[in-house]
């Protein structure tokens, strides 16, 4: 059963130096507050896994938490480059970053296989492209019925998954809604999981019979962090801070301005700094 913890306790318990970790969220519900806590706690040698490493991984990479990145699209959506990611790959700053690169289809299938406790995923992909030449983990199997050759990737089974969700109930069940991405798969594929939530409610009340819910017994720990997805967004709570994404380009472009920002906004702050971005659902619905 999931236990309720503070964000600090949650990161201490779920994420260790040297772990592979998926902080997922497909544009929506990106666990920014949890990423900041990992930076504050000075995690090292992480293998960061994420389909779309965006600002949160730019920050973890730029502060030296990461040793390897497994990803499929590394940019600032609608804006441009992730400068800290590029600086690590192109110049080895703050240190060399190993990369394992896939396509979205491959990563999504690899999470799905991980959640399903399979060692690999089969899909129709990577035809005619160069990624298999630089990624030895892209292999193939032959269909035992048709003889067709299909692409494979290893299942993703991270040590830890960290996600942000809308609500938890008192039993520790977790509700997601809207663009749900690969978060459910990431949690089910991982050995341990931490979920930050906008709200903790007595129970979820009337809901769609097929609501996207992670049962308490599939989650390790839950921390109440209102606003914890900012500058990403939480469906029905607050909107994506597009201006922050655009502004990040300037902040992250130079090492100095990046480090100053991290000092002022991460190292010298705590999880409560995110609360100002939170809006309870009733207000948000207005």
């Amino acid at each position, binding site marked *: 059963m999931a236990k309720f913890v503070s964000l600090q306790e949650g990161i201490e318990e779920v994420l260790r130096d040297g772990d592979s970790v998926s902080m997922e969220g*497909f*544009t*929506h519900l990106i666990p920014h507050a949890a990423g900041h806590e990992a930076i504050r706690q000075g995690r090292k040698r992480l293998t960061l896994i994420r*389909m*779309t490493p965006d600002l949160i991984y730019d920050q973890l990479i730029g502060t030296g938490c990461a040793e390897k990145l497994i*990803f*499929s*699209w*590394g*940019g600032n*959506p*609608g*804006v441009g*480059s*992730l400068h800290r*990611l*590029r600086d690590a*790959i*192109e110049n080895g700053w703050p240190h060399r970053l190993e990369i394992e*690169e896939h*396509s*979205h*289809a491959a990563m*999504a*299938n690899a*999470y*799905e296989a991980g959640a399903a406790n399979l060692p690999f995923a089969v*899909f*129709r*992909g*990577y*035809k*005619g*492209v*160069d*990624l298999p030449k*630089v990624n030895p983990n892209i292999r193939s199997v032959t269909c035992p019925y048709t003889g*067709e050759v299909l692409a494979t990737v290893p299942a993703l089974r991270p040590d830890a998954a960290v996600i942000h969700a809308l609500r938890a109930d008192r039993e520790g069940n977790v509700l997601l809604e*809207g*663009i*749900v*991405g*690969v978060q*459910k*798969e990431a949690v089910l594929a991982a050995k341990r999981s931490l979920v930050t939530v906008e709200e903790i409610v007595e129970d979820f009340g009337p809901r769609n019979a097929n609501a*996207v819910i992670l049962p308490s017994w599939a989650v390790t720990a839950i921390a109440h962090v209102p606003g914890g997805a900012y500058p990403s*967004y939480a*469906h029905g709570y607050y*909107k*994506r801070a*597009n*201006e922050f*994404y*655009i502004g990040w380009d300037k902040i992250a472009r130079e090492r100095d301005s990046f480090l100053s920002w991290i000092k002022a906004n991460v190292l010298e702050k705590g999880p409560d700094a995110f609360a100002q971005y939170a809006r309870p659902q009733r207000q948000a619905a207005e």
Partner: protein
Amino acid sequence: MSHTPTEMMTIAASRLLTNDDICFVGIGAPSAACNLARLTHAPGITLIYESGTLSTRPTVLPLSIGDGELCDTALTTVPVPEMFRYWLQGGRITIGFLGGAQIDRFANLNTTVVGDYAAPKVRLPGGGGAPEIASNCGQIFITMAMGSRAFVEKLPFITSFGHGTGKGDREKLGLRTKGPTRVITDLCVMAPDPETAELSVISLHPGVTREQVQAGCGWPLRFAADLTETPAPSDQELEVLRGLHARTRQAHGVAA
């Protein structure tokens, strides 16, 4: 009304879409073209974004592939693994709409690196959904502004497969989809030659010369025998496109 080359590119792209199309839409120029089509001649067009939003009808353009607007106006939203398995790989998408950093004469795309992969000169964002969009959609439209660093003789990296080294390469790989059938630029529209699959210019945008197009392309360009002029944007097309951009700027509080 006068128009910019980017507006012409978006409008020319939008005209290729029909009510019956199921489009897998990328962010940026593809998204503008698809939504312009929906707001003008193809109100019944179905738009899908890789974030999982099926049949979405945004009133403003999204800044990211997963903006809340896409979910709020969608028929429904599915998990990303389902999107890639049931909907894209399932073969249900008629048109995939891609952009890219670099393209070659056979419409292969690079969005991965400039220079050596292990020690890149410029690290680009990577493939994202593109490699499997390129292989699994019925056909592919590409929109890119021209320039000799974008339209190159040889790609340093093939992120998404177009026509490989020429006609027949897709079939050799077992691909049964058409691949890129149109490249819509700010200066012209190209299509693969039926005999060779090499891109050739099939229409020039109003006022654009062959020389200007060639200047924006790193390989010696072919021009179709029946080269035409792209019809200029109509006032209605321009008004709807500008209205869409204005709403988008207002919604995002930024120049999107």
